[in-house]
């Protein structure tokens, strides 16, 4: 870590380098690309959530004028499977369909309309199988198997001490069962892209948003049975992903189609409905959460049992459950723990990576239980959390030492001193029935990076190019989080340049080095380290080059000017000399993530965490059941803020997304079929549904293993807000919700069922109930 010196860019709120072109709409996303002479693709999806395929006949579709090709599993020459953690998802189903988004055939045609008509002409015979739509029942003996190996996709657990003893030593023990809903990423940019097969070079180029272009390249090549070198993937910029473009979406379809269009480009764009049905979701969870504490609030024992509904395929369900396990303890010290979880295959769509990655679910349960414990003990909920908050060097609930930075205590102290928290009782009096005011708090720690045993590395190149511009190359992508601006800041700072002297090239398997996946809140930390090291390396290269060609004694001044005896030498001049000599002036930077000393498989545990506390106030209308989030205070520990404005943006968006998880959004399914797979009935919040006010206070507890002390906060800012709102609703009306979202229907039904809760008593007092 560098010591605190004056910085020019780091720690400054700087507008996004891509902000203007995004605001004006000038920026072209990969889904905007329409090459001349393109064919148009369509995907035939499964007609049933669970069925055996008896026959596929494409003759009629092929005969339709304007159809260029119709492809089935027979055209998949390599491995007809994909999947990040284990490839169990068919590219094109050969014998069985397991969810309604399963792809059975592909069509390319002269127009999208013809392609759509052709889909209707493909005949697929099915033997319908019983639908598995409940994850707990899926795991019972005798349940119809979704996969030949059975429905248990993943099982893992961690333990520390002796929970039986811990509960025996507790003065208060509280346990409850919680449920979470299926949740959609609902990114603005629907999956769309273009591919072309260059018959001369033999290379297929795929332009399609994806969170890890190098892994997409590998999965495409594996399905084609090709050398990855022959597959060129361009994956950035992305119009929103939130984890939903981590797994392969349509990249393999694009590549397959491009092989059968005689060198013509092929474009494929899903519909919103198709995107909702076929794409990744956030797992519904069933969580039995039990915790015990001593009279003074000291946490004693924690026992958690979870089942997640993975849907039809594995993708990242194992790692997601692992993070739920890891996150279940919260950022607290526990002497005795037993945490266990299973992921079940069902026919309910398929679930995978989603911002928060499993911690969202276990934090939602745990932070309510901890609040209940505080209530039972008559303790201030923040004091309870402070009493148990982790410190650097503590042994985690999984028995490993957390030797990285820990800022949870600092976030809690900001919350405790906040106006929102201090005035929480006083403000109650401003509201009369049917309106009730309440304030809640919750904290989280979010594992960052890929975790134990999973290769976690990042590379970056920094080149001085013609005209004196420094070009930073990263394999990571921009999906709206603002990382490109942060990379620019870090490179410019390390080289002493202005922001405008640095340009970023991202997410292209031919142009950029492998920087790993843009997930797991890892970019600022991992890629940021690689970029900074590459920039520092370039600085050395430049100094050596200048010494060699213009002699010793130059000093590098801000703005990239080398000076000696009043004579200055600019970067453009240096670049010109290098070009004339055929020399490439490049710095390379690499970083490998540190690892924990314990190993529970599939990335469990991590060694680095981001921390966040959020406070929310709500106004509940006990007649209409509507919950309005009034104010939110979001307090992430960023290690060190590279771009405070960027963090505020992430925090605002995270809060809105998490509030909607608590109150509004739910993917509804019935018998393996989607009920509200469109934006008419899958209700996203609009601007007027957002909290009235969101404030972000950034806490900085520098992380020693980062070049500037930074850590990622992209996920943690969306997690505690949901239980904070649940706790605020309890504070307001005296009812706990063990199921989300807390819709007006659920809230009013709960009021009717709890005539003795504090809200109902107050309502009766004024003749409103």
């Amino acid at each position: 870590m560098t010591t605190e010196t004056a910085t020019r860019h780091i720690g400054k709120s700087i507008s996004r380098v891509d902000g203007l072109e995004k605001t004006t709409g000038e920026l072209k996303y990969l889904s905007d690309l329409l090459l001349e002479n393109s064919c148009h693709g369509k995907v035939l999806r499964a007609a049933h959530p669970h069925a055996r395929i008896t026959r596929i006949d494409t003759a009629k579709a092929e005969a339709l004028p304007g159809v260029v090709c119709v492809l089935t599993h027979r055209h998949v020459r390599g491995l007809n499977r994909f999947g990040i953690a284990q490839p169990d998802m068919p590219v094109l189903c050969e014998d069985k369909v397991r969810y309604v988004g399963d792809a059975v055939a592909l069509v390319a045609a002269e127009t999208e309309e013809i392609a759509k008509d052709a889909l209707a002409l493909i005949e697929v015979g099915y033997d319908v199988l019983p639908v598995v739509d409940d994850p707990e029942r899926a795991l019972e003996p005798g349940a119809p198997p979704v996969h030949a190996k059975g429905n248990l996709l993943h099982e893992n657990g961690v333990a520390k001490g002796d929970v039986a003893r811990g509960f025996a030593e507790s003065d208060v023990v509280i346990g409850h069962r919680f449920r979470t809903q299926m949740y959609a990423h609902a990114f603005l940019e629907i999956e769309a892209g273009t591919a072309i097969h260059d018959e001369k070079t033999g290379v297929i180029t795929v332009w399609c948003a994806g969170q890890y272009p190098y892994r997409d390249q590998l999965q495409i090549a594996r399905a084609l049975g090709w050398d990855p070198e022959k597959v060129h993937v361009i994956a950035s910029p992305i119009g929103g992903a939130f984890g939903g473009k981590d797994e392969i979406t349509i990249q393999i379809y694009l590549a397959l189609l491009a092989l059968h269009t005689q060198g013509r480009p092929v474009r494929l764009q899903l519909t919103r409905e198709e995107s909702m049905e076929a794409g990744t979701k956030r797992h519904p969870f069933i969580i039995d959460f039990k915790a015990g504490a001593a009279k003074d609030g000291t946490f004693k024992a924690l026992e958690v049992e979870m089942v997640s509904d993975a849907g039809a395929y594995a993708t990242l369900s194992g790692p997601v459950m692992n993070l739920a396990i890891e996150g279940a303890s919260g950022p607290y010290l526990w002497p005795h723990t037993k945490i266990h979880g299973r992921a079940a295959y069902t026919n309910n769509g398929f679930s995978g990576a989603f911002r928060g990655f499993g911690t969202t679910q276990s934090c939602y349960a745990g932070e309510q239980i901890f609040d209940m414990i505080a209530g039972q003990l008559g303790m201030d909920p923040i004091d309870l959390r402070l009493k148990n908050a982790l410190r650097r060097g503590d042994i985690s609930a999984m028995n490993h030492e957390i030797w990285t930075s820990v800022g949870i205590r600092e976030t809690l102290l900001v919350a405790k001193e906040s106006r929102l928290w201090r005035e929480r009782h006083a403000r109650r009096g401003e509201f009369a029935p049917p309106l009730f005011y309440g304030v809640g708090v919750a904290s989280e720690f979010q594992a960052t990076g890929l975790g134990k045993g999973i290769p976690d590395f990042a590379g970056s190149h920094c080149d001085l190019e013609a005209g004196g511009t420094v070009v930073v190359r990263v394999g990571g992508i921009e999906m709206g989080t603002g990382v490109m601006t942060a990379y620019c800041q870090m490179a410019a700072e390390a080289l002493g340049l202005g922001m405008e002297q640095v340009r970023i090239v991202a997410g292209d398997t031919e142009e950029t080095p492998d920087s790993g996946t843009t997930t797991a809140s890892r970019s600022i930390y991992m890629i940021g380290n690689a970029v900074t090291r590459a920039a520092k390396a370039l600085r050395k290269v430049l100094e050596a080059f200048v010494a060699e060609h213009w002699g010793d004694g130059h000093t590098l001044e801000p703005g990239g000017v080398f000076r000696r005896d009043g004579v200055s030498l600019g970067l453009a001049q240096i670049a010109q000399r290098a070009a004339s000599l055929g020399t490439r002036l490049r710095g390379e930077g690499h970083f490998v993530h540190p690892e924990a000393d314990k190993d529970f498989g599939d990335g469990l545990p991590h060694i680095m965490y981001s921390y966040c506390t959020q406070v929310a106030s709500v106004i509940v209308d006990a007649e209409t059941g509507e919950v309005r989030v009034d104010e939110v205070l979001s307090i992430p520990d960023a290690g060190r803020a590279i771009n405070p404005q960027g963090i505020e943006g992430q925090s605002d968006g995270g809060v809105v997304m998490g509030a909607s998880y608590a109150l509004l959004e739910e993917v509804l399914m019935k018998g393996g079929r989607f009920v509200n797979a469109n934006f008419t009935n899958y209700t996203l919040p609009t601007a007027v549904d957002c909290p009235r006010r969101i404030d972000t206070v950034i806490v900085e507890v520098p992380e020693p293993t980062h070049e500037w002390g930074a850590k990622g906060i992209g996920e943690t800012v969306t997690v505690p807000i949901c239980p904070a709102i649940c706790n605020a609703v309890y504070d307001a009306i005296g009812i706990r919700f063990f199921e989300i979202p807390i819709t007006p229907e659920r809230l009013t039904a709960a009021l009717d069922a709890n005539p003795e809760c504090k809200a109902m008593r107050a309502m009766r007092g004024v003749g409103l109930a």
Partner: protein
Amino acid sequence: MKLQGYHTPKTLEETLSILDAEAKRGRSAAVLAGGTDVMVRMREGRMRPEVLVQIEALSDLAAIDESAAAIRLGARVSFAQLMTSKVIAQHAEVLALASRDVGAPQIQSRGTIGGQLGTASPVGDLLPPLVALEAEVIARSVDGERRVPVESWLRGVGVCDRRPNELIMGVEFRKVSAATRSLWHKAGPRRAQSISKVSFAALIRLSAERRVEHIRLVFGAVAVTAKRAAKTEALLAGQVLTPALIQQAQQTAMMEFTPITDLRSTDAYRRRMVGVMLRRGLVSLL
């Protein structure tokens, strides 16, 4: 069936003869006004017209006309017009209040009153106000013009009284007196771009001693069409409005409807909201 034709008639006569000719040929023709229902439904396959008749050239249909006692709205009058018109603010405020809660600015600019009447959705937000205003729908074809009260125009979920060769010309209703209060409330899953779970429009005139002299209470989304709470109206008519009477009215109204549970809400919640909206509306008059 695929779309086979797209007409852009320049005059009313031309429009009517196209509609008549298409009806005689047995082709399903849909009038295209703002398109905010047509485009959505065609894409979803819920509506499969063989021809579209676009009526953008019929500028007369975009007028709000005021006579001494009545107001006439052309079928192409948009939500945005209703929100900003002085005539509406003065004589039919309930339409402006409801329009403000429709969609968002884009839909308010495109969507029309003719489209509300043509779609005849149980959740059409202008329909409860039009029923409360006792508006008449004016429909015309080559055979002549008819007037149908909105209540009988709306026949079921997505079903209206329009004949295949008819163009909706607009609606007409008597001006609301200055002493009459307009009430509007909409509950949806969110606060904008929201499909009503329950909506409520009312026109109520009280005497100086709060005796109910005129009352129309209409609910949307709790029956197959926008529907008056007839029993509750009868309970309140001629009575002096008191907290006790309001409580009684709330109970009566809740029992008047048998709403359904669907993906947007539950029967219990809808019924509760009928009572809450009525109570809050009436209390605001005290």
